[in-house]
């Protein structure tokens, strides 16, 4: 019980390129070996009849071991319900779902899945360390409590009563609890909600270290910035469905860029935009003209060669703009890969 598994020895962190799924490495078969999560046509409906809420409405998703996946979507997109299904708190109304090649509940009972829950309550009468010891005692096996506290950056608050911990400190405790079993799959439901900027940064740094130990990490978030900073892959949900699924760079690239310039004419920028097939792409701001487009190189080339504009600035649309674009009601559905 007191020995730390070799995979957790500091200094043996594999280069991030090796965090790849270990396809076919297990004699038990590729399914159990490489797949952390496998969902096929998963539905979860609350209530029935006209008032039924389809919280998860037909999700197909396969996550390989070692992947870091951001689950993105606006409030009510079904992220939390989906995580509840993965944790076995609730069963799919239809469809099939396996976690590490077994039913979700079993994976949790064996300590193979850890989670930081948005709604995970703590007992206010216990200290941080007592909470850890009590939960550890309920696990089939676990690493030393001190080690988990250390890794979650909660060692210095070990003696503090939970009721005296700030929101960020309680979140660290939840994180330390999730690390106790050395889970293969770590689920985080908006882990940085309520944290200030610094706590947020520190949290992701510790999380990065955990990911480098080879864990599969799936986290739900509102912020595309967090997703792009930390994840390899983005799964975007809207109204209970998966609408986008692909590597971070590709997802962000689907967002538009802007070309801002000083307009020389002749003609108005709007006329030029229509000519280029970019209606509604023009905005005026502080005497400058801003075009929004996907192929900004072509646009810039056109503007410069025709002498219509000068003093060009090309910028990527902000991540928030991309997010709003992807989650808006008229966004196209489909996968990118």
């Amino acid at each position, binding site marked *: *019980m*007191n*020995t730390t*598994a*070799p*995979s957790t020895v500091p200094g*043996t962190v*594999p280069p991030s*390129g*090796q*965090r*790849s*799924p*270990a*396809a076919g*490495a*297990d004699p038990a078969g590729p399914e159990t*070996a490489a797949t952390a999560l496998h969902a096929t046509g998963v539905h979860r409906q*609350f*209530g029935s009849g006209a008032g039924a809420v389809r919280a998860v409405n037909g999700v197909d998703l396969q996550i390989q*071991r*070692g992947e870091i996946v951001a689950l993105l979507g606006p409030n009510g997109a079904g992220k939390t319900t989906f995580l509840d299904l993965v*944790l*076995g*708190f*609730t069963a799919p109304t239809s469809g099939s779902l396996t976690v590490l090649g077994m039913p979700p509940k079993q994976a*949790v*009972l*064996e*300590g193979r*899945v*850890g*989670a930081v*829950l948005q*709604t*995970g*309550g*703590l*007992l206010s*009468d*216990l200290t941080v360390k007592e909470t850890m*010891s*009590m*939960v550890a*005692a*309920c*696990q*089939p*096996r*676990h*690493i030393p409590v001190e080690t988990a506290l250390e890794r979650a950056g909660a060692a210095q608050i070990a003696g503090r009563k939970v009721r005296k911990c700030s929101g960020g400190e309680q979140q660290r405790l*939840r994180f330390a*609890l*999730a690390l106790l*079993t*050395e889970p*293969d799959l770590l689920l985080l439901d908006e882990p940085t909600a309520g944290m200030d900027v610094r706590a947020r940064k520190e949290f992701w740094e510790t999380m990065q270290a955990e990911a480098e*130990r*080879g864990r599969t990490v799936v986290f739900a978030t509102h912020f595309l910035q967090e997703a792009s900073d930390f994840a390899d892959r983005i799964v975007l949900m809207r109204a209970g469905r998966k609408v986008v699924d692909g590597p971070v760079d590709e997802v962000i690239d689907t967002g538009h860029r802007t070309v801002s310039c000083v307009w020389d004419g002749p003609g108005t920028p709007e006329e030029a935009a229509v000519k280029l097939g970019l209606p509604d792409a023009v905005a005026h701001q502080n005497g400058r003209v801003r075009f929004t487009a996907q192929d900004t190189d072509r646009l810039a080339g056109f503007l410069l060669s025709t002498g219509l504009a000068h003093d060009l600035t090309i910028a990527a649309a902000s991540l928030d703009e991309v997010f709003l674009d992807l989650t808006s009601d008229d966004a196209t559905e489909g996968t990118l890969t």
Partner: protein
Amino acid sequence: MSTTVSPQIQQRQYGQQGRHGRKRSRLRIITAFAGWEFLRNARMVESTFFIVVLPTVLYLMFGALSAFGESPVGNGTIATYNMTAMTVYGATMATSAIAGSAALERQQGWGRQLGLTGLTSTGYMLGKVLVALGIALMPIVVVFTVGSLTGAAFDEAWMWPASGALALLGAIPFALYGLAAALLFRSEAAVSGASGILVVLAFFGNLFMPLSGTLLEIARFTPIYGIAALARWPQLEGTVVSMEDGGAPISDPLWAIVLNVVAWTVLFAAICLVASRRSTRRG
């Protein structure tokens, strides 16, 4: 993406059995959980005071130090009569408080946190039942011990464990009582409120002073009356102790006592059932 398998991942796949020592059995997990819960409850000073200290002090005041303490009543003394009453009071306080707080903890998300461990929901329930019985046993043991040293006595030795066991048994329906309060009102105030009402019920249960007349007629239909009469059965066999002299001694038949206990248990359970259906309707 590289296809190299990192030694870490390989280790994780092949080395499951030896990962962190021997795997704990379900039973060991439940006992460990119950142990922690026992520690938590025992160390909450406020509740331990009401569950253990207060009944003991009340017994000393009204039983041991009473002028009639050693006067014989049934198969024991006045002190014995008071002693049993106080164990019933302490034990019901214990079970209702623990069941109530257990429900609140679950509602406040601690259940989800434990849902991520090797403890099953059945294990959770079982652990809590063990703890509630363990805590309810504390006032019984303490008050009986103090009683045996201060003039409480039964005519026969078997009556001690029999009275104690009946007091413990009678406290079980009050776990449902505490649970019902928590499920209905979902707040800590409701659980403490339920404890407060328990004091009134204890008065009608004939625990603090022998009732007579109209009060006694009402009391017969209240929940603690049944379990108190049951716990006192070894001593009194149904006889109702009265402070007034003269008149024919009143007595409750065993069937009436059992009916009271069963009826209230069913009622408490029904309230719990309805309340929990309501609270989980969303799914």
